[in-house]
């Protein structure tokens, strides 16, 4: 069905656009952009006054847990969370059960996501079989089935020789290697940052160096192999400086950061031992968070991702040291960015669109989505003033593990168009099949 979005502010740095206009979505495309557009017959009208229309947002680092851990999240429930958060596309990490290390695993996710019909899922294939870091996975097979990038996320590839082999092999395919950087000999049993948190809480520390050393190593391997390197969820100031140097040198290196590493620090973990503050990599120092905020604002950090990591209640309602790592993030990502960076003026709308829509597509080798006539209608409409209270019910994800439960934020996505289909309508997820094409339940 056609839809007229009237009077929104359109922001797209790719075409130098920042202006108020009407947009007519028809046939899955941006049929017209202009002022005073008339709604054709049988056309939905969305009042966009006071809102901002941007290319559909992309979260290129999520865990949908499907197959294998459907009690935490499924491709359908994860898709709902993504739509709620304002996303049209996500890239899913391969640490499912079985690990996504063949074309079959890639195709399964794409098919399930199409059946759900709420977001496009771009599977990230494993670099090595079973993410064991020992033997190459069938990377070519996965490329042919639609894998968008490759990663052993959850682990770093510990053996430098194996990582070299992976990057050499991937370099043939015009895909990036997404590197979870963690020297496990250094992070050991660490569960919090080595420093104030490990000392005050009496738990093993996960030192910054464990990340930085592997970031540095993988940058060197990128130079050696020519393979595009995307550093996942960087958490320290020094990791960022290594990435900056690599970019200055002209290496094909990009990186990403998560909201929790921007807006939370190790000092937030107090003696209540809140397991929703247990992440991998861990929350770092206030100085690290400040450096990362600067990096995402100035463009040194390419992408904003959530590392959306659903875990069931019983996997978090336990002792900190045995709780699972990670938090859900799809729904809170945009509100946190708007509340903490855009509304405060630390980051402009152009940069927000760059890091949440443009750069992730580039890293994933997806076609760009631009706000211009004839383009695919992947759109996110944002109300920067709408108050949001993060509650369990407000979260669409099957899991509710977030430290922001109860938080009051300002600004969120109100509407999302996926190739012209309205998947989020005034904050409510719409459509999405609960059964597969052959009638199996997807929930």
């Amino acid at each position, binding site marked *: 069905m056609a839809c007229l979005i009237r009077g929104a502010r359109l922001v797209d740095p790719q075409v130098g656009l920042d202006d108020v206009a009407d947009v007519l979505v028809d046939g899955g495309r941006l049929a017209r952009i202009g002022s005073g557009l008339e709604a054709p017959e049988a056309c939905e009208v969305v009042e966009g006054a006071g809102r901002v229309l941007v290319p559909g947002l992309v979260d290129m680092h999520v865990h949908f847990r499907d197959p294998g851990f459907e009690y935490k999240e499924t491709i359908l429930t994860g898709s709902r969370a993504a739509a709620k958060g304002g996303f049209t596309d996500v890239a899913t990490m391969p640490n499912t059960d079985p690990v996504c290390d063949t074309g079959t695993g890639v195709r399964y996710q794409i098919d399930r996501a199409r059946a759900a019909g709420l977001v496009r899922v771009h599977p990230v294939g494993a670099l090595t079989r079973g993410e064991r870091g020992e033997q190459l996975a069938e990377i070519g097979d996965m490329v042919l089935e639609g894998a968008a990038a490759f990663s052993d996320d959850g682990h770093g590839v510990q053996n430098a020789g194996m990582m070299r082999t992976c990057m050499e092999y991937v370099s043939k395919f015009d895909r990036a290697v997404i590197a979870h950087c963690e020297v496990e000999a250094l992070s050991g049993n660490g569960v919090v940052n*080595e*420093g*104030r948190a*490990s*000392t*005050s*809480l*009496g*738990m*093993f*520390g996960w030192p910054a160096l464990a990340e930085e050393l592997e970031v540095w190593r993988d940058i060197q391997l990128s130079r050696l192999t020519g393979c595009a390197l995307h550093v996942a969820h960087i958490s320290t100031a020094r990791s960022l400086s290594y990435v900056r140097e690599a970019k200055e040198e002209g290496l094909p290196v990009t990186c990403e950061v998560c909201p929790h590493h921007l807006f939370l620090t190790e000092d937030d973990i107090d*003696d*209540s*031992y809140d397991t929703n503050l247990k992440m991998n990599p861990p929350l770092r120092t206030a100085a690290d968070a400040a450096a990362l905020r600067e990096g995402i604002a100035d463009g040194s950090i390419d992408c904003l991702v959530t590392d959306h990591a659903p875990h069931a209640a*019983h996997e978090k*309602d*336990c*002792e*900190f*040291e*045995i709780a699972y790592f990670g938090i859900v993030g799809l729904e809170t990502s945009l509100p946190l960015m708007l509340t903490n960076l855009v509304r405060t003026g630390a980051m402009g709308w152009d940069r927000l669109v760059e890091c949440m829509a443009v750069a992730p597509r580039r890293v994933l080798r997806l076609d760009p989505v631009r706000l211009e006539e004839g383009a695919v209608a992947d759109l996110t409409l944002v109300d920067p003033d709408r108050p949001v209270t993060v509650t369990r019910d407000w979260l669409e994800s099957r899991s509710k593990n977030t430290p922001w439960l109860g938080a009051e934020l300002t600004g969120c996505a109100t509407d999302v168009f996926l190739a012209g289909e309205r998947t989020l309508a005034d904050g409510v997820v719409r459509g999405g099949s609960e059964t597969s094409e052959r009638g199996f339940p997807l929930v």
Partner: protein
Amino acid sequence: MLSVRNLIDTTSLTADDITQILDTARGFAEVNSRAVKKVPALRGRTIVNLFLEPSTRTRSSFELAEKRLSADSLNMGGSTSSVVKGESLADTIQTISAMNVDMFVVRARLAGSPQLVARSTDARVINAGDGKHQHPTQALLDLFTIRENFGRLDGLKVAIVGDLLHSRVLGSLAPALRTMGAEVVLVGPPTFQVADPTWFGCEQTDDIDSVLSEVDVMYMLRVQLERMEGAAIPSSREYNRLYGLNARRAALMRPDAIVCHPGPINRGMEIMPEVADSHRSRILDQVNAGVAVRMAAMYLLLGGEDHGMSD
């Protein structure tokens, strides 16, 4: 009345709390010296000793303290622990709490477990050691021993020596000493040092000989032999040579300085027998103080109007 509901760490205790506990412990120390070592104070109260990690000494001390207070106590742990059966700690606590108990004494392998217990029950909670985090009753009995010896804590200087990184004793002792106005210096090989000594407001050094003549108390931590597998120190022999408190080092201490150790001691490792058994040693006083201090903590936590379960 104490300012806290539970005794989970020493970081949240005020100087007044600590003084109340130590003063009350003197009263119980007197009880423990009598032929009839029992008072009716906690008659009718039920205390559950939940030991999720084996501990003979601490558990015996708590059990004795409970019996001497006339409380009814129940021991859980080992094969009955939730960890074994796959039940979560919160579920275990809720189940036991449903039987109307007044207090949990919790020893756990994982840091923060007593906080988790406290969130799952209305009963009072005493931390009997949680992972590498804290062991508050140990710190309080140490303070008791040191105060009985010097008559004060304010202005004393205490060296805490050994495996600082893995020590829950340090986690409780250093903050408690600082709260009471004592100065603390941490001593250990670099591989045993804490990441952030400023958290404790302490200096940290790898040179034991530099502190010997400056301190009133040499507090020798137990070195867990299993830590050597992690290659943090090359051998017990070398540790003893570099950090062990031997007669030569003891001779450099101030005339009235004392030696403490939380036990069990590794003779020949962190401390030599001639020092452990010398006039400086207060190691047995510490053990003796343990029962009185634990009685005081339970007595002060379970009394008063605000108490939940029994009234």
